[in-house]
């Protein structure tokens, strides 16, 4: 991994994001982009105003495109010689808010001139293509929509393609912009909380949504070393599983997350004892954390530090895996453990080593980053400091 770029509720770019992680900043705020009067939950992790003078982009672009462009530009500025051969991006909802605007215009019998733009930008590949245009490159792109695991799936598949030699350089990541439909969706399922987000806490009561984008530049190690690129970290393993228990709920035993983590460790040729930190999916819903907590405890016991960074910024769905992979890289580079904020009381269902409420300095050489989603899709990625 030779470069990363990130736009999240914690800030623009890796510097702002690392600072927020170290300060355990709670960036969940009242929703401003649509009316939440009739919702139970009223807060989310929202990306701040994306000034055109910062990113130099058209005002007509969807928020998702602006985030993708910001993240892509940061990565390509960090490694200007990285010329991608392929692009794999994860998302769950594409340009959903443009679809919402289109529907509202029908109900209100309006035919605004920008409706053609709404339609063209509704499709999930558009933000990736906009990022390509902004970055001045054209490569084949695959858009993975495996719900909340999408970002990790994109990184994992990119890793497999690079490791196999099929592609030398792949730009991968994920994005999602908050939208009313998805927000209300989680609210209707009572998966969203009216409280703070408290991953792995005994009193956790649900998630809040987040948004953002992150991209990672993956390159064959030899090629990167040959051109003298700065190598931030290595992706060394990827595991995927499908839990057929229920469309929206994981099997309580944690078998889906367990299989994904075990497959990722096997792929990386690592034993659980060699892992220094787990960046958990940790949405803070009772069911999800119970399933993931059980799986982590079964594989790793209570030794390995675990945190979910969603307490700080909400759940950014298709972007989550990519954003959390960047957080994992920051942990490796900065030798610290990102915090699991709003944590008050351990859940007696399992014994975990939670990085409670404050970041900790620690020796971090190997991270497992988890992402699990609707449809029973589970993905784990292993990221390590450079071995060579």
């Amino acid at each position, binding site marked *: 991994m030779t470069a990363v770029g990130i736009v999240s509720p914690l800030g623009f770019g890796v510097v702002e994001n690392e600072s927020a992680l170290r300060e355990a900043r709670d960036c969940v705020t009242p929703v401003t982009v649509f009316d939440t009067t009739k919702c139970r939950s009223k807060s989310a992790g929202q990306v701040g105003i994306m000034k055109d003078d910062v990113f130099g982009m058209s005002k007509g672009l969807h928020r998702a495109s602006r985030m993708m462009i910001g993240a892509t530009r940061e990565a390509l500025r960090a490694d200007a010689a990285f010329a991608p051969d392929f692009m794999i991006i994860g998302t*769950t909802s594409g340009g959903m808010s443009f679809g919402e605007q289109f529907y509202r215009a029908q109900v209100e019998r309006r035919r605004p001139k920008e409706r053609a733009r709404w339609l063209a930008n509704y499709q999930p590949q558009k933000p990736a293509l906009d990022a390509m245009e902004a970055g001045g490159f054209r490569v084949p792109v695959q858009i993975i929509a495996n719900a909340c695991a999408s970002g990790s799936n994109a990184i994992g598949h990119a890793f497999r393609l690079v490791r196999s030699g099929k592609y030398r350089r792949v730009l991968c990541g994920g994005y999602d912009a908050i939208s009313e439909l998805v927000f209300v969706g*989680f609210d209707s399922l009572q998966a969203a909380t009216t409280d703070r987000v408290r991953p792995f806490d005994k009193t956790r009561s649900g998630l809040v949504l987040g948004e953002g984008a992150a991209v990672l530049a993956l390159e064959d190690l030899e090629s990167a070393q040959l051109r003298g690129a700065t190598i931030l970290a290595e992706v060394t393993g990827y595991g995927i599983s499908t839990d057929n228990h229920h469309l929206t709920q994981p099997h309580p035993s944690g078998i889906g997350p367990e299989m994904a983590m075990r497959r990722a460790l096997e792929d990386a040729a690592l034993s659980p004892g060699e892992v220094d930190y787990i960046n958990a999916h940790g949405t803070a819903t009772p069911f999800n954390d119970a399933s993931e907590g059980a799986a982590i405890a079964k594989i790793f016991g209570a030794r390995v530090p675990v945190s979910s960074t969603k307490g700080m910024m909400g759940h950014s769905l298709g972007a989550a895996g990519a954003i959390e992979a960047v957080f994992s890289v920051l942990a490796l580079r900065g030798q610290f453990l990102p915090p699991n904020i709003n944590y008050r009381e351990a859940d007696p269902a399992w014994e975990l080593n939670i990085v409670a409420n404050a970041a900790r300095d620690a020796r971090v050489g190997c991270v497992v980053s988890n992402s699990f989603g*609707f*449809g029973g899709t589970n993905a784990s990625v292993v990221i390590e400091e450079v071995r060579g």
Partner: protein
Amino acid sequence: MSVRIAGIGCVTPLGGDLDTIWRRIEAGERAAVVEVTNPETGRKLCAAPVPAEYTAHLGREPRLRRSSAISLLAAAAGKAALADSGSEFTPAQKSRLAIVFGVSSGGVQYTRRFYEQIVKQGANTASPMLFPETVYNAPASHLAAMLGVDGATYTLVGDGTVGLQALHFGTQLLELGDADHVLVVAAEELDWALIEAHRDWRLARPGKGALLAEGAAAVLLGHDGRRAKIASHPGESFISRREAPAALDRVFTALKPDGGVDIFASGANGTWVDALLRSAAARHLTSPAPRELVAKEFLGEAIGAGALLQVVLATDALERQSASRALVAALGWNQQATGALITR
């Protein structure tokens, strides 16, 4: 190791099996056009849905009882491809069976209905039964549960080329050794909002442009398989339409064999893509010129399923016409081009 097609299946407005579809095509039939009214504006629209009887047999599947049409269509095509292959997967083999699902607009019926509740009745009345089915990967999840697949399941999203993109993703999984077999499925369902949007986008106006349709296609890939060998293209992205001919040139150049092809399975759909596909074929597929198979002329444009339907029909046409090679090409409305070469 080459990638082969072990089984194919589809469901379209003209039929739920290939024999019926070919019989009706040969009889000169086209997908029946149904009038659809935009309930908000009263505007008349038209489209070609898949008759409900083609998927009715799946309604009792536990995971499909409350699902949207797109999941039923995907399941029907997927099961047909597995049946066509004659494969019986043991539990051990299922752990090495992956599912790749391609889709363009997703569960638009439930998505529109869910948002309609938010807009007209308030967010506090929106049904939690609808929301999970609005997620792009819901059909793949249902299919995995029906088939007992617990390994890799992926959903890919894109424009009208996404069926071929899913196919390429499937070949990547095989080549990477991540699976021994991959069931690639692509599907599209219709809703008045989707039809209205494409009419507004000037792509599907009554009698002009594409006839939007429902449908689903499925291809079972493996390293062995009786149907044909397939080589797929990773796809090309283009930002403006001016870049599209060059993108198609790269696809054709990468795929075309020295000895030419017998069938050109074109993604022509009655819109601006037709001329670009035809001119690319004229530049690359000469002496002798292949027979052109334009599936969408008969089946309509089932966006997310369209390109994989081209693959299914081309694969079957090779056998029915005792031909050797077919080149499939698709150009999407939203900046993507790709193709595949099928060899018997």
